[in-house]
């Protein structure tokens, strides 16, 4: 029996073979190793390792911070995308190109730069300190780092959707008597929603697992500002492999949930507004 319909195109065996072997060697086998390790521990030990207070607060901190940062990026990402697509002003293309800076700038570089800026003696840190706020070496510092790394996700997923909105639909809404605000709320927003949610989920997934940009600015106090990926690194340095694996499995679970969420959003929106 053939797995693939007969085709005059050559190279299926070669390309599919390459894809499967590289994917297995580099991605699937290592992830499998993590799952096997977890299975070896048994459910009881696994649950015990994750429910320790330090681990729990680290996972919670990572998730909560990523959620807040992604929500911030959801709102401002849509605004930035809207301004970049719809308005014409000097510097627009420069700003458009700069949006991807967080993708291009290594996370460690971003981490030490943000720390220098927001530390109590840094440019922004001093201003915050004047207002009695502590940003670096405190939970807000984590948010600053995650907003930075997550900014491009919403902008870049929403931008092409805004560019494709049919102006006539907005005009139709206006001819029917709707104010500009009503048009934006009832006609534009629903169309942007799936893309915005996808970008939000991507930023969230990135934020939960983010390490490089956060560890410099966070302060890394156990139970207070210690994020989950850092705790994995610490457990490995303590040769507590099982402890590290348990946290890793919990984070993998969150990743899969996120992936499912993204796919669900896309399927839902395609079914809902899949115009011919």
């Amino acid at each position, binding site marked *: 029996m053939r797995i*693939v*319909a007969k085709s*005059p*195109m*050559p*190279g*299926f065996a*070669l*390309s*599919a073979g*390459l*894809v499967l072997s*590289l*994917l297995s060697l580099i*991605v699937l*086998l290592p992830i*499998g*190793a*993590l799952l096997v390790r977890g299975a070896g521990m048994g459910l009881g030990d696994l649950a015990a390792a994750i429910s320790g207070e330090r681990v729990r607060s680290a996972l919670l901190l990572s998730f909560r911070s990523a959620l807040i940062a992604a929500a911030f990026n959801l709102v401002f990402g849509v605004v*930035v995308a*809207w*301004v970049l697509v719809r*308005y014409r002003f000097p510097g627009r293309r420069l*700003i458009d*190109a*700069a*949006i991807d*800076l967080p*993708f*291009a*700038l*290594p*996370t*460690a*570089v*971003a981490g*030490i*730069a943000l720390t*220098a*800026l927001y530390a109590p003696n840094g440019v922004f840190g001093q201003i915050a300190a004047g207002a009695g706020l502590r940003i670096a070496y405190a939970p807000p510092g984590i948010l600053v780092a995650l907003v*930075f790394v997550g*900014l491009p996700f919403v902008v*870049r*997923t929403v931008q*092409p959707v805004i560019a494709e909105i049919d102006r006539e639909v*907005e*005009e139709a809404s206006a001819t029917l008597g709707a104010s500009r605000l009503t048009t934006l709320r009832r006609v534009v927003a629903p169309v942007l929603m799936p893309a915005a949610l996808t970008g939000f989920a*991507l930023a969230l997934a990135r934020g939960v*697992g983010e*390490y490089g940009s956060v560890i*410099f600015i966070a302060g890394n106090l156990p139970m207070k500002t210690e994020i989950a*990926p850092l705790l994995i690194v610490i457990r*490995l340095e303590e040769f507590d*492999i099982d402890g*590290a*694996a348990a946290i890793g499995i919990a*984070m993998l679970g969150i990743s*899969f949930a*996120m*992936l499912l969420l993204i796919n669900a959003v896309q399927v839902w929106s395609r079914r809902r507004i899949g115009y011919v």
Partner: protein
Amino acid sequence: MFDAAHLAPPRPARRFRAATEEPAALRRGLIGLVFVLLAVLLFAPLVTVFGEALSQGAGAALTALAEPEAHAAIRLTLLVTALSVPLTAVFGLAAGWAIARFDFPGKAVLITLIDLPFSVSPVVAGLCLVLLFGANTTLGDWLVGQGMPVVFALPGIVLATVFVTFPFVAREILPVMVEQGRAEEEAALTLGASGWRMFFTVTLPNIRWALLYGVLLATARAMGEFGAVAVVSGKIRGVTATVPIAIEMLYNEYLTVAAFSLAALLASLALVTLALKTALEWRHADALSANRRA
């Protein structure tokens, strides 16, 4: 002679606003907000990198870059990039060909699996590699016995880098290949071209800009990867410390100027990447996947 402008009809007193526009005040406010937001979020950190690097003069920054350990880190980063990006590119090409040109069961699953590394934390990726190849694992012990350690050595760093850059090329190529369809390749086959000839003379030229775009993104990420490498490299000074790892070590030793000098080097490369990427988006928009079109 009359100046034509004097003959133009007077503009209506009331400023009309198109039905698809926001009020001018709101527009100006939003543009201002975007400028402020990006100045604070993006430009301030970027300026800080260079400002801190040059805080004690360009000489101090250059001295820091000339240190043997800095050199070793730069060499290692270049080597890792040179080894991992071609792997990512080959994977991307193979994935593009298999998925865009053939129908087979499990295709949707495969596409999801390719994106998987995007949603896995780099630290977890590193952890997975340690669990597969590390000390006290069957495979790891055997590899060490063969004189080919993976973890705390170059192969581990390369594997970790490939893991995090895996989807970059495939994601750029795949939509372009799907969009282009297979007619041109079928034409080449009917004209008597062999498989490889068709690939090099028809397929590759059609996707070259998308391929370059993906390679560019993968390169930027490969040179800057931190979390995954931090876990598998063991951070052995001068041996397994890539540039980002060296930045961390210097920073933690309060060698701020040295840390920021290396950071400025990576930031410059990031700016070059952005410039090239933007140039591709402007000049070859039609050859890139739809959501890359500027």
